């Protein structure tokens, strides 16, 4: 499926509003002003691994996963590349992140921290989508993992991963450049419904 310019613009604006809300909450929590960049949106196919790697690379990401169902069904992720996750951890906890697995306790706490930041981001975006489109969804409990994006998408199930909407955004917290991405993974039918709801608003 392809999205036209207006549809991509609408999705970008929905993400923009969601990220803005998330930034506001993070700003209150950290006591720092957060500057944002304009989100960049791509639509890629969940089965085209080359395309996924071209847009997102093969590196591991810290990922918070949120399943949703209702008017449309799919999986949302907020993901941070390892470097941004490390910067966030260092800024919030003062710890050097542990990548070799020798500091299990530190890793649990770091995962917990990243899970909340990812949760705030993804909730902002999903809240924005459902609010503006006037839909109600049911959600799973968020979960955390560290994996390459292709593996994350695989988990979504073969009939649910036809379309991956990738929104790339940057937040500048205390002069630190944090890169975050939102993935919305949906089957063809669900994406159709989402787009239809966007069109209804505009008509």
């Amino acid at each position, binding site marked *: 499926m392809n999205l036209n310019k207006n549809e991509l613009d609408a999705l970008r*604006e*929905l993400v923009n*509003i969601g990220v803005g809300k998330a930034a506001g909450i993070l700003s209150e929590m950290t006591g720092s002003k957060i500057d944002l960049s304009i989100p960049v949106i791509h639509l890629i196919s969940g089965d085209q691994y080359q395309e996924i790697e071209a847009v997102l690379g093969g590196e591991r990401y810290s990922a918070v996963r949120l399943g949703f169902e209702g008017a449309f069904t799919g999986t949302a992720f907020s993901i941070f590349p390892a470097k941004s996750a490390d910067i966030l951890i260092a800024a919030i906890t003062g710890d050097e992140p542990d990548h070799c697995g020798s500091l299990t306790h530190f890793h649990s706490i770091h995962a917990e921290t990243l899970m909340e930041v990812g949760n705030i981001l993804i909730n902002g975006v999903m809240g924005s989508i459902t609010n503006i489109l006037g839909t109600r969804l049911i959600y799973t409990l968020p979960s955390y993992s560290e994996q390459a994006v292709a593996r994350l998408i695989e988990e979504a199930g073969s009939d649910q991963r036809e379309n991956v909407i990738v929104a790339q955004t940057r937040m500048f917290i205390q002069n630190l450049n944090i890169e975050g991405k939102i993935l919305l993974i949906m089957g063809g039918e669900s994406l159709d419904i989402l787009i239809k709801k966007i069109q209804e608003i505009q008509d």
Partner: protein
Amino acid sequence: MTTILIIDDSSFQRTIIRKTLTSEGYRCIEADNGRVALGLIAEEQPDIIIVDLLMPDMDGIEFLTAIREKKISIPVIVLTSDIQDATREKCIQLGASSFLNKPTRADELIPAIRLLLPPGEGE
């Protein structure tokens, strides 16, 4: 008829705002960034400006600074996804008359507009 200039890089957002405003009888003109808007202001002389902050080319903060320098006294409502207090304060310091967060509802936007119009106008 009251003319309102909507400045936002998102056509989706401009459509939503335009629909709200035209249903209240306002005339709308649109620009997708601050630089284009400055040209339209000279031509159309809008009564009120609604501006987003995060835009390419000339963003909302740069736009507010530019109209201040040009001594343009048209009231400006900032309508943004950025809900931080520091952003609000900065916009007010730069002369914004009002600061609203997206997504805004008609029952927030319309009263904000009416407050900025002379009594009797735009009702």
